[in-house]
């Protein structure tokens, strides 16, 4: 059973969102900021399309990580999750809730937002909730609210101003329940207007079988020491109120209840009409608003069929706190929220601080004086300051090694052709850079992919080579035009030396094992410079900077490994451009002999 006091006293309560509803999530973060939290409790979002969702916490933006499946959630988040806001569509509600309960051991409360969940699924949600002793609120619920502690869902509003106006940062003695989301907010706001504050509030949802039923709510309120009164908005349709009545008769619920059952207007219709909420239809006599109100009155509930009478009852029966006193803390925090502006980009590379440039968090000039060029480049490429000295040194070494490979390669040729056509520096350099791709200069990234996949999937080098051979594919990072196993590339050995000084170097080991197999087939199928650099970089990142295989895969996906080649080789292309302009041989043109004509 839901224990409200636990929600109030639990110091830390982590939440995740299943489905990404920005308006709802932002309102939860705003609530927590206004309540004086130092960080948001929303730890992750299960959704697709992006890696992060950018939300405000106060005036600053925070990035909440997105995972495409619940099973991908990091272990500590799974373990610490107490709350779920589920905004998946009606069709996905049952399956996603079931999965969440199965996977999250410390789940306390899930709120289900979707409308139009089938009744049959709601019945199963009720079973799930009971069997696992995990509270499910909804479907079609805007959530649960405990003043100053917890806002799970859109409850009480989605605009910061509304949250402050509804005085959600004051503790009170009145529990508010409603089958209608809009009326939950309406009641909270109107209570605040007359100086009545909440002990907690729940929106049950307007479906026929709310998984957290009015009875569940009333029993929680009865048990809760802070709650002195219960205010309830119910509607025609269904039998939930009769369940309540049974328990009032038994003495399980004793606190004073003021309630309004909406739907007397149905009496005007010739046949029972369906109102907005799924349950709001009284097909049978005892489901009408009049019948329910009568039955509730008979057991001593202050029940009425009129909203006017209802509000009068509330005002006369509940002692109010002084209404004029404003919560100045939340008011001043609201000013912070209202002054914020969404950014267009997020970046971790550099920024301008008071006119000077800051690179990955520290001032550039100071860095230029104390760090190597390799360190600065690698830090910027990774978006954070690297701590490994060998990685900085290696980067610098690589930048030098890839600087040029003679004027014969495609990129250099294009640069020179453009230069001789009279194009400017940037155009000629671009023409060379644009040549870099899968066949020229793109081998670093491809090789990194081979070594990563081969190593982490526990494939033996034999199997790996064999599977590629079967597909008729070349292995990037393997093979040289000139050098052979008996006449090795002199550059490779010093490259590998950067990895072999590490205590573990599984990626370069895999690459070398592959080389052993390929050179047995053909002498020139040696590990080349690209393959060696890729392997060493993977090892350095894993051992020195604690990159996980997932992080490394991400670097491959965003073409990080090729970046080193592009940067280094730009020097070569620029040199060839300047060289050609100095020589100035005029426009370059091929002669007919150099191109063979053939009919298709």
């Amino acid at each position: 059973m839901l224990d409200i006091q636990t929600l109030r006293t639990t110091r830390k309560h982590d939440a995740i969102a299943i489905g990404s509803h920005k308006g709802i999530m932002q309102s939860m973060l705003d609530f927590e900021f206004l309540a004086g939290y130092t960080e948001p409790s929303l730890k992750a979002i299960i959704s697709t399309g992006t890696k992060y969702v950018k939300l405000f916490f106060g005036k600053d933006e925070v990035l909440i990580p997105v995972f495409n499946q619940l099973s991908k959630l990091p272990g500590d988040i799974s373990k610490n999750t107490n709350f779920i806001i589920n905004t998946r569509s009606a069709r996905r509600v049952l399956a996603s809730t079931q999965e969440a309960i199965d996977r999250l051991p410390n789940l306390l409360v899930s709120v289900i937002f979707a409308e139009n969940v089938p009744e049959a699924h709601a019945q199963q949600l009720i079973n799930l909730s009971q069997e696992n002793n995990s509270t499910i609120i909804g479907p079609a619920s805007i959530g649960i609210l405990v003043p100053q502690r917890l806002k799970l869902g859109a409850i009480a509003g989605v605009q910061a101003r509304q949250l402050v106006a509804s005085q959600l940062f004051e503790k009170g003695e009145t529990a508010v329940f409603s089958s209608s989301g809009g009326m939950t907010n309406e009641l909270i706001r109107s209570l605040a207007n007359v100086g009545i504050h909440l002990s907690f509030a729940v929106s049950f949802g307007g479906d026929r079988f709310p998984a957290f039923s009015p009875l569940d709510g009333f029993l929680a309120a009865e048990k809760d020491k802070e709650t002195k009164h219960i205010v309830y908005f119910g509607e025609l349709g269904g039998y939930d109120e009769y369940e309540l009545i049974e328990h009032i008769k038994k003495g399980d619920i004793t606190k004073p209840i003021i309630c309004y059952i909406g739907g007397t207007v149905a009496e005007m219709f010739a046949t029972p009409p369906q109102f907005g909420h799924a349950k709001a239809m009284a097909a049978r006599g005892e489901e009408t608003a009049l019948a329910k109100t009568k039955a509730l009155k008979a057991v001593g509930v202050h029940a009425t069929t009129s909203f006017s009478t209802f509000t009068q009852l509330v005002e006369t029966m509940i002692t109010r706190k002084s209404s004029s006193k404003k919560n100045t803390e939340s008011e001043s925090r609201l000013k912070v929220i209202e002054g914020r502006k969404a950014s267009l980009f997020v970046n971790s590379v550099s920024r301008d601080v008071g006119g000077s440039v800051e690179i990955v968090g520290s001032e550039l000039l100071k860095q230029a004086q104390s760090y190597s060029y390799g360190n600065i480049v690698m830090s910027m490429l990774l978006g954070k300051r690297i701590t490994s000295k060998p990685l900085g040194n290696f980067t610098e070494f690589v930048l030098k090694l890839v600087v040029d490979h003679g004027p014969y390669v495609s990129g250099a040729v294009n640069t020179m052709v453009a230069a001789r056509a009279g194009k400017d520096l940037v155009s000629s350099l671009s023409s060379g850079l644009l040549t870099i791709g899968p066949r020229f200069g793109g081998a670093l990234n491809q090789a990194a992919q081979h070594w990563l996949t081969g190593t982490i999937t526990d494939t033996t080098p034999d199997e790996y080579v064999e599977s590629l051979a079967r597909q008729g594919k070349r292995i990037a990072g393997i093979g040289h035009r000139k050098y052979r196993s008996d006449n090795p590339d002199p550059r490779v050995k010093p490259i590998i030396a950067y990895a072999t000084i590490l205590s573990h170097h599984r990626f370069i080991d895999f690459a070398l094992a592959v080389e052993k197999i390929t050179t047995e087939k053909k002498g020139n199928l040696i590990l080349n410079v690209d393959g060696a650099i890729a392997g060493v970089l993977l090892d350095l990142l894993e051992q020195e900077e604690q990159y996980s295989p997932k992080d490394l895969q991400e670097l491959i996906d965003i073409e990080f490994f090729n970046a080193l080649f592009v940067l280094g080789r730009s020097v070569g292309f620029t040199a060839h451009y300047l060289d050609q302009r100095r020589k100035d041989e005029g426009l370059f043109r091929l002669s007919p002999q150099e191109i063979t004509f053939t009919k298709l």
Partner: protein
Amino acid sequence: MARVKLTEYKAKKLLFTSLKIQYEGYSFDDASIPFAKRLSADKKYVVKVDQGVKGRMKKGLVVLQVEAKNIAGIYKKFHEKGYGRIIVEPQIIYNPEQERYLSIERIRTGFRILYSRHGGIHVEDKANTMQESILPIVTNRSKDKSLYDKELHTIAAALGIQEEIIRHLHDFFTDYYCSFLEVNPFVLIDGKLHILDLAIEVDSTARFFARNAWSNEDIASHTQSSEEEQVVQQLNDQSQAALSLTLLNPRGTIWLLLSGGGASLTIADEFYNLGHGKELGNYGEYSGNPNEEETYLYTKQLLNLAFKSNQKKIRILIGGGVANFTDVRTTFRGIAKAFEEQKTQMKKHQTRVFVRRGGPHEAEGLSIMKEWLSKNDMLGVVSGPEIPLNEIVKRVINQS
């Protein structure tokens, strides 16, 4: 939407197919009765209005012992009473004392089965013979099915029929996501099951899971709805938003543009409770963040109905709670566009407009409306959530 009633014809088609019983009924919805030729001249038929009306026999909407050639005439008579869809079935001869009753209703904890050996049109008078069993929910996660089997046995024994029949009915009920199923009566002739009258409510939200076994055309509707109501229905079917419009009183003087399930109900209740229910022309809601165009089209239909009332003075209430996501500025632009288009007619009917609404872009929305109403001299009250829901109703009534 939620629970909707299928036509008897569709209900029987579905159930009989599932029980592997041949169904010999026909459904007609026009006077030419194209199927009449297929009906046998020697047989007698039952002709019933098939629009979900309760107590048809008592209301004279069932005719027994009809010859095929007379069906068209009966259809015409029903049509004059405002009905348009009938079901025709071969007359079955049986002893009325054999009529039995069974209904299944989906409830929170499972399925409530009501049953009696004494069914038929006077079933309410035989309430003391009615028995009740609750079947628990059984899913592939359930371990213990013994309670389910035990209840099934009890029901079958009490009705004197095979357990298999009850099991089939219940399987059908869950397979098709039914909410309510009533067989009244059914009879056993020579051990064979005959379902004479059948009513089924299905869960409209589950159509996808029920493999689209029914469509909108299979849903029984009591009366011919007005053109405006039909347009809004279509609009709703094609929209992400929830739009509904029901004509209550064609001569109404107060017309409602409501949003939000609970707040709409509260406002309508308030008129009814204060004794002004008869003045309400309509009930309806625009919810779920409709766009400007949808709100414009919706408002246009409401205005059409209001003008048709031929009332000299019209009051319009744009009412609702504080929306979470429905954009007040966008929806109010749509409403104002329809008003602008119809302002001559609105002035002719001395229209006065009252507003109480909150939500995203509330300030802009309210000011758009206030400005338009002032300029055109139709301003009643324009307010945000600072006045209570019931207060705006009082203002409308006081100025009527």
